[in-house]
């Protein structure tokens, strides 16, 4: 039987959002205006961690898709689906912020470089995964099929990245604490941790909702079958 989520979950959500606000405030106040980019650099504090979270989410999709194929537990499918939705949001956010940054920094909204293009392809794979889920009604079919699509999509990500990289490349090396001026690293690290908390909270919350939806479906089925 379905158990309502504990109060700890709401508390965790509150902490996650406060952490984001605090980390953003810290990063914006401590980081000096950057030489070439000025305050445009501040976009990095959401853009870069959001990209990391998108990859973490897709990794969760991969792990739980494979787990579902092995164990056939409904909950694994629901976790993978929740992570896919959250991952799609973060991928979209990464792309949007990257474009907002790219316009003043590079002078164009879009360049066909390896990381931009493969992130866009990643986004499309997520969209396909979510479309498949909404177009299949039978629960067990939906779970089995999306597990395969999720796992294949994740396998494909490094191949897409490599192929687009060979095809053409222009992006500056990825920002990580190693490539950054020390004045910016702390802000980036804190924001990554804060967004990680938000990611966990979102996936967890979406999973609870998915469980509730499943519980209603089960109930509707058993009523239709004449049970109670």
């Amino acid at each position: 039987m379905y158990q309502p989520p504990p109060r700890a979950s709401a508390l965790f959500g509150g902490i996650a959002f406060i952490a984001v606000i605090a980390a953003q405030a810290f990063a914006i106040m401590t980081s000096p205006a950057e030489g070439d980019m000025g305050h445009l650099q501040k976009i990095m504090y959401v853009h870069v961690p959001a990209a990391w979270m998108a990859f973490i989410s897709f990794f969760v999709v991969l792990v739980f898709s494979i787990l579902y194929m092995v164990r056939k537990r409904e909950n694994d499918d629901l976790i993978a689906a929740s992570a896919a939705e959250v991952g799609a949001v973060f991928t979209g956010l990464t792309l949007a912020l990257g474009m907002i940054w790219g316009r003043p920094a590079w002078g164009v909204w879009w360049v066909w470089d390896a990381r931009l293009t493969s992130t866009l392809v990643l986004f499309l794979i997520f969209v396909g995964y979510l479309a498949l889920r909404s177009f299949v009604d039978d629960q067990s079919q939906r779970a089995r099929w999306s597990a395969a699509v999720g796992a294949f999509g994740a396998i494909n990500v490094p191949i897409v990245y490599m192929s687009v990289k060979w095809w053409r490349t222009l992006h500056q090396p990825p920002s990580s604490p190693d490539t950054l001026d020390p004045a910016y690293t702390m802000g980036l690290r804190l924001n990554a941790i804060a967004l990680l908390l938000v990611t966990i909270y979102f996936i967890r919350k979406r999973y609870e909702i998915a469980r509730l939806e499943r519980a209603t479906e089960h109930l509707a089925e058993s009523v239709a079958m004449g049970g109670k």
Partner: protein
Amino acid sequence: MAWKDDWRRVRAIARKDLTTELRAKAGFNGVASLAVTILILLGLALGPDGEALRNAAVGAVWLATLFSGVLAFNRSFQVELESGALEPLLLYPGPRWTIFAGKLLGNLVFVSLMVAVVMIVGIVLYGITIPDRWPTLLGVTALGVVGLVVLGTFYASMASRSRAREVLLPLLLFPMLVPVLLAATTASKALLGADLMHESGAWIRLLIGYDIVFLIATFIAFEHVIEA
């Protein structure tokens, strides 16, 4: 001999699919005509400058192949679904992967014939001179077709049984095929020119790797996906 029996099953399914196709012919004629139409439309949209057309030829041929190939894959399962023949097929003794292998083989023949038509028309319409290294070019095309057909057949086994299959299959398939499209077009372009940078070799290795990875992955996952 178990593998001999399996091979007979594979051949029987491929032959059944191809015979159905051969007797009706409507499927192949329709799909091949669509591919040629796409080539002509792309020529009109990009032309009439001969040089521009020659540069775009490889991309046009591959896009025409992708867009019309996608119709072939859904067909190969739809014929069975319409007459309720998929379940009896699943009930036959023997491993399930033989069904996938049979469908794969059938689709491979179908798409290869279609690609032959598309290439000949492309060579004529876009004014391509056949290069000295045409056997390598044929090899690249064959590797690309294998990648397309492996994933196309696999995704069609799901998409053809969902609502909105016409939309779902390309939505799932095309982002997955980005590496195939990039590798096949870039390598072909290099081979049509002088390939001074010797870049076709790396792309051919990528295509071989992609084909092997997804051949193995689809064979493992098919059993899991096809259950009624």
